[in-house]
């Protein structure tokens, strides 16, 4: 098959019927936006429920009695300790402590795991895992990306929508990262309380490819709004979630970014000394550097010279990937992702209103000594925009919808 032929997910026809604007993304013909547009799609996800086709991502099944041991070796998190009915964030590490990819590992059933990887890295990840498999003779690695489709349903109304469609099993309980096998409107599904939007109420659903269209239609009929890749990006950026190729992988100079330069990656690295895994020595050096930084000791910044920070732009204007960042006139790094995102306004009693506004946010890869509270400047078309490093631009947890600007 010619490799330059764009691929289509089982939901491609649905996107066309909905008049989506289709673009090429990582070799896939995907909806960048529907007629509502990126801003309205973003807002719909935050206020009610957004439905995303994420079937372009890679899905690998790992089974066999050494599956847990193999995943412990090939991934940074503690797969062996992942209980059935749970999932976690994890990373495929290189020996030098950089990332091959970041991924999500689900354990829906006791004897097998499903690893979801980035579409753009799928072939590379597959080869990487195959190369590590040699020492685990009884592991079976299968590519389910075509036979199993995947959608995400995100936002405060998601749970009510799914509850109304449940015909078997149960939704994953009680909290984020739980995973379950269930039936929605008669279709067998694998559900995780996971997502890429920062929403507290969030689900990702895997379904047999030939049932994906039927499930998609039902979810739309129940009130979910279709959301394209454009809003998927603004939602993840507002929530400060990393994207491989921006906040992970290679930096703007083509150098490997250490995994733990990205704060979110800390959740993907097991504390445990229990396991041997690819990249362990390098990652332990990064962990030691983070410990020193926490104590204010920046005497040795060779392992983690720069880190990913979250920025709020205080001047009018938008920072974009590649915009240089300065602190007191000194170049300190570069913007890795940036745009303007919409947010709902709240009234004095913290109730969501019908009004929204836009704000300019970014993620940047900057000098490791710069932390929340620091003022920086971002160069955009020869002008300097003021910006402040903030802990985050979106409150986590129950009030995830509440846009903060602290």
């Amino acid at each position, binding site marked *: 098959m010619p490799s330059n032929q764009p691929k289509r997910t089982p939901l491609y026809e649905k996107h066309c019927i909905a008049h989506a*604007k289709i673009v090429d993304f990582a070799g896939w013909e995907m909806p*960048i*936006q529907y007629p509502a*547009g*990126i*801003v309205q799609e973003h807002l719909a996800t935050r206020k009610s429920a957004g439905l995303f086709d994420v079937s372009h991502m890679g899905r690998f099944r790992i089974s066999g009695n050494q599956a847990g041991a193999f995943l412990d070796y090939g991934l940074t998190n503690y797969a062996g300790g992942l209980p059935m009915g749970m999932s976690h964030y994890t990373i495929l590490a290189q020996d030098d402590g950089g990332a091959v990819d970041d991924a999500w590992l689900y354990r829906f059933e006791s004897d097998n795991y499903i690893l979801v990887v980035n579409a753009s890295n799928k072939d590379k990840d597959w080869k990487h895992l195959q190369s590590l498999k040699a020492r685990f003779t009884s592991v079976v690695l299968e590519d389910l990306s075509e036979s199993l489709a995947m959608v995400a349903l995100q936002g405060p109304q998601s749970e009510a929508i799914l509850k109304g469609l449940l015909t078997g099993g149960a939704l994953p309980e009680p909290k984020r990262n739980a995973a379950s096998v269930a039936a929605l409107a008669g279709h067998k599904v694998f559900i995780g309380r996971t997502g890429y939007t920062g929403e507290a109420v969030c689900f990702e659903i895997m379904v047999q490819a030939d049932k994906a269209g039927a499930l998609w239609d039902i979810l739309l009929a129940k009130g979910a709004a279709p959301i394209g890749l*454009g809003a998927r990006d*603004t939602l993840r950026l507002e929530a400060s979630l990393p994207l491989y190729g921006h906040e992970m992988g290679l930096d703007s100079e083509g150098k490997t970014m250490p995994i733990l330069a990205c704060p979110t990656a800390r959740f993907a690295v097991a504390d445990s000394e229990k396991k041997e895994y690819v990249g362990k020595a390098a990652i332990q050096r990064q962990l030691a550097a983070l410990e020193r930084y926490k104590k204010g000791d920046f005497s040795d910044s060779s392992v983690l010279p720069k880190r990913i920070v979250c920025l709020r732009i205080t001047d*009018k*204007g*938008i920072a*974009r990937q590649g915009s240089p960042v300065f602190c007191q006139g000194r170049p300190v790094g570069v913007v890795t992702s940036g*745009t*303007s*995102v919409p947010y709902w306004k709240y009234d004095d009693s913290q109730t969501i209103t019908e009004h929204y506004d*836009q704000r*300019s946010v970014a993620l940047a890869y900057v000098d490791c000594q710069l932390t929340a509270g620091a003022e920086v400047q971002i160069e955009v*078309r020869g002008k300097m925009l003021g910006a402040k490093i903030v802990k985050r631009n979106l409150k986590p947890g129950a009030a995830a919808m509440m846009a903060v600007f602290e």
Partner: protein
Amino acid sequence: MMIDKQARYLQTHEWVRKGPGNAYTVGLTAYAIEQLGDIVYLELPPVGKELQKGDIFGVIESVKSASDMYIPIGGKVTAVNADVPDNPDMLKAEPYGKAWMIQIEASNPAEFDGLMDAAAYEKFLETEAH
């Protein structure tokens, strides 16, 4: 697609129209606005700025990208529509009306006649779409 029969056009989708008075009014076409999607930021030049035909006079940003805008006719900026940067949504509704961007005192009015007229621009859009 909405088009102003009185205006002249650039292939980069800026329009220019005679008036008010001896001035020329400049904006961005409905086609360009639709292609860009949600507009979130607009940067326009200050009054008094001297521009040569083809110079960048401003920047328009959607969620996804930033695009330069080119001046179809050279001259001095005599007025800037400050309402548009404050409310970019108006570009969708009235790209040739209330959402005009700048007015120019043309240094060489003959430049206007050399631009694509509405019929030529419409024909150009057909080729652009295919």
